[in-house]
């Protein structure tokens, strides 16, 4: 129904309770829900953003973090163009498990998939268990983007999704993604002019909300 130039599929992965569903809700509905039911299998949400004056539809798949759903969520890696790998800065173990999540993602996804590492719950500074530098170091080591976010205050949430989209868009421009392939996680939409997008990417107003910016580490 919506008219978009491209549709990007994202998945959100990470341990249970790190705030994946809250990030999705904050991004799609701009609200925070402190108490959330456990995600069963997968849920999805969608939102339009604008890049380079083109409407991009982000279709975001929020996966269950529980170990028992791990095999189910693996089915969703392959068809995604972007992934948000989330840990909770107040829970050390969620950071320790990142390597396992990343290994899964690398094994089952497209090699071109853009991965954004997110340290969530940045509003809980007093309970921080994972220094920001450590998150940055992990991202640098594995070639990921990195941001700390708060689904509660919405800090950096827009930027996380936007920045991932921007990287995917750049890859399309560079011909890295085969957009005709269904499993690339990208779909050319009805409003796409047919030509490969070129030119400057306009992140729009949301970029200004960024706290500290985002680096491909």
């Amino acid at each position, binding site marked *: 129904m919506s008219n978009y130039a491209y549709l990007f599929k994202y998945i959100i992965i990470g341990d249970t309770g790190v705030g994946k569903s809250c990030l999705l809700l904050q991004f799609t509905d701009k609200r925070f829900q402190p108490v959330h039911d456990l995600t069963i*299998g*997968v849920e*999805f949400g*969608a939102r339009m953003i604008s890049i380079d004056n083109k409407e991009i539809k982000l279709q975001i798949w929020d996966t269950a973090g529980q170990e028992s759903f791990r*095999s189910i969520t693996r089915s*969703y890696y*392959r*068809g995604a163009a972007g992934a948000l790998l989330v840990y909770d800065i107040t829970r050390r173990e969620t950071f320790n498990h990142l390597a396992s999540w990343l290994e899964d993602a690398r094994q089952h996804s497209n090699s071109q998939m853009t991965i954004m590492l997110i340290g969530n719950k940045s509003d809980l500074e007093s309970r921080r268990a994972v220094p920001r530098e450590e998150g940055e170091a992990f991202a640098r080591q594995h070639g990921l983007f990195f941001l700390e976010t708060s689904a509660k205050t919405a800090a950096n949430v827009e930027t996380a999704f936007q920045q991932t989209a921007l990287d995917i868009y750049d890859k399309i421009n560079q011909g890295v993604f085969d957009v005709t392939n269904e499993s690339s996680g990208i779909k050319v939409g009805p409003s796409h002019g047919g030509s490969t997008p070129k030119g400057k990417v306009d992140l729009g107003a949301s970029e200004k909300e960024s706290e500290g910016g985002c680096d491909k580490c």
Partner: protein
Amino acid sequence: MNFLKSFVGSGGDSAAMSPASAGLDYSSPAGVIQTTCDRIISATLHDDCLASLQTLRSMSNSYKSLVAERALPALMSTLTGEPAEQSANGVAKTYLPHADLARIALDTLFILTTPDPPAAGVADSSATVCQSIVQNRDFLLLIMRQLQPFDELLPLEPDGTRSDYEFRIATRISAIKLLGRLLNVNPHPIQDAALQDPDFVVNIQAGLSDGSDQLRTEIPLLIAPLAQRSPHIQQALAYNNCMELLLTIALSEDGIYGGIVVTDALAALASLLRSEKVRGMFLEYDLFPKLCSLLHIDDVSDISPSNDLNLTQRSSSRAHIVTQIIGIIRLFILPENSGIDAGFSSLVSPSSQSLFGPMSGGGAMMMGSMAPNRTVERNLLRTNIMTLIGGLAVGSGMQIYAPIRREALLAIGDTMRIYQECRKQFASLSPTLSHQASGGRVREDAISHLLQVALGSPHYGPSLSLGIRSAAAYAFRSFIFGHPDSQQVVLNSLLVPSPDDDASSLRTLAIGPLASLSQEELEADPYRVWFVCNILSHILSNTPACKEKLLQAYIDPTQPGSQLLFFAICDRIVSLTADAQLMASSRPISMCDLASMMSPNRLAPGQLDFLFVLIALVALLSLLAIWMHDFTPAVIMALNHGRIIQSLVNTGKMSHIPDPYIPALCVLLLGLLVAGNDNSLPEMDRARIRRELIGLHLSRENFFALLTFLQDSAAFRSAVSASFAPLPHVSSMPTVNSPHWRPWFSGDGGFASSPVDHSVPLFFDADFVRFFQSVLRLH
């Protein structure tokens, strides 16, 4: 089959035995099979292995059990293939099966898992082989892996194609067929394995988008059983674009002009759409218009004998596809159509409650009310699909395959309950509709049409099936649901005579069976009275004004001295219960199955009479119960009738009842007569009626025992899922299953036993069942 057990236990890698070590004669079939299996496992040359596999395949037809006992490890080893890629530490990362070998192995397995035609004294090994395979996770994963295109591992030919491509296609198709067979036997291990192997879903997607027609037509056959009852698989397949690909296949086959390929694709799509989340994805992907476009019908006028859109015959695949598409649309309109089972755990046992207590509120018919889904509504309106479906439902000028019409009526009914704009659209269909009456073309509106069909108007001939009539009644009820104004208007049209009233007028069709129910009329249409009562019940259920209006209605207000309709109904009940008692005591009754009931002429005359009486009694007693509930004037009127109480009690005293549905309904009415009694009639006050009931052996225990029978009966328990029953929105029907009526009151007045329910010829409206349950909850 001990070998199979050991195979399963060992994970499939048990060592092959030579014929000698197995104590076999080399020249016997078993010896040859064993030798062949050994060669397959030990062959170093591809051609040797190929020849041995071909031998094994040819022998599997004639010696299925022998091959099944010995060959599974060898076949499994064939599917493994050879290392194609190595990881950094030198360990094989990817195995590439030889396409030709794998195909023969899969074909052999398919033969081994194919059931033999039944033959005396010969045990069929196929089911055991299936179980052996599905219980071996490694074997299963190997078979599933054969769906992989392996494109990236196949050498590129000069012309740009991949070598072995055709072989790979054939292998993938063999794997699909084998998995389909296994899914039919035991789906759960395969579904579990599919969720363990993320590549499997991706391989299915790859197959659907492959250039090979064969693959594209075979894979939908795999999806339907694979996704059945597994929301996780449904979602994973939907995520991987399978819905869009299935629709693309159906569209490329030209929608309803396509054949079995479209049917299979739609069946697969429907299996995915059982999941609410997947339906959300479907709308999000904007696939709804694509689904509607499969119909290739822009306007109802397109459906006429003059064009080639043949929707009249059972054999027409177009008719079947149209039915499928409407069925899928219904999944979006009413989520409960997806088959979600509701429980009954919240029911309060009547034994712990008193129906004799005071009545208060609630208990009205509970035809489910749903919040509209705005995205669905938007799609319905922008595709204008409900106008088209409405035309298929009530377009009486055309001959349409009955299941299409039934599905269309149900879709219209579902829609009108929830989406008011669609309800208006349907009602506005009236100017375009007409039917061929004896005196010429008579215009009628869509709602009158629904009533005419439900009541079995002679305009539509004797061929109207119960399914169509029931669907029409459901659609009509949906139209008046939640609209008291409409209920009153319809009631007026049924009650108020007009100069045009004739044998086919709505008033005659509706009031006639209530006013004078002769045996001839019952035989002519035993279900008319049922549908009349069903429709009136829904008009009365939520609107006290309608209850009042009907209470004041005369059979024929134009005739001086005409009887009140209420009293006429009471008279009918008195008369029919007497008939039932007489018939039950005069001859044994042997009841029949649903199919027999659909063809009443297959029943013996005595059975026929008895069934007709039961059908009418169920209808009339249900109507009266709803009328009297929470409406004291009707209770007082019944108490004034006098004979009705005696008749209800007498029915309770019937001594030979196998399945006491009628006595239980009578008891329900007695309870309502007590509960709704405001003691305004001194000679019929509550205390007196209670004393009389107890004196007539209708003790509190007996009373509750009968109500418990109703509540626990399969007919009533199935009410929630009634929309999937053979007759829509009618609870599954109890059979009167004993050749003899048997005592249901023991000598001491206690309840004898709880009868066994089967499928059957008595109908209960599903909403009446819910009404009954709510009454029990209240008291």
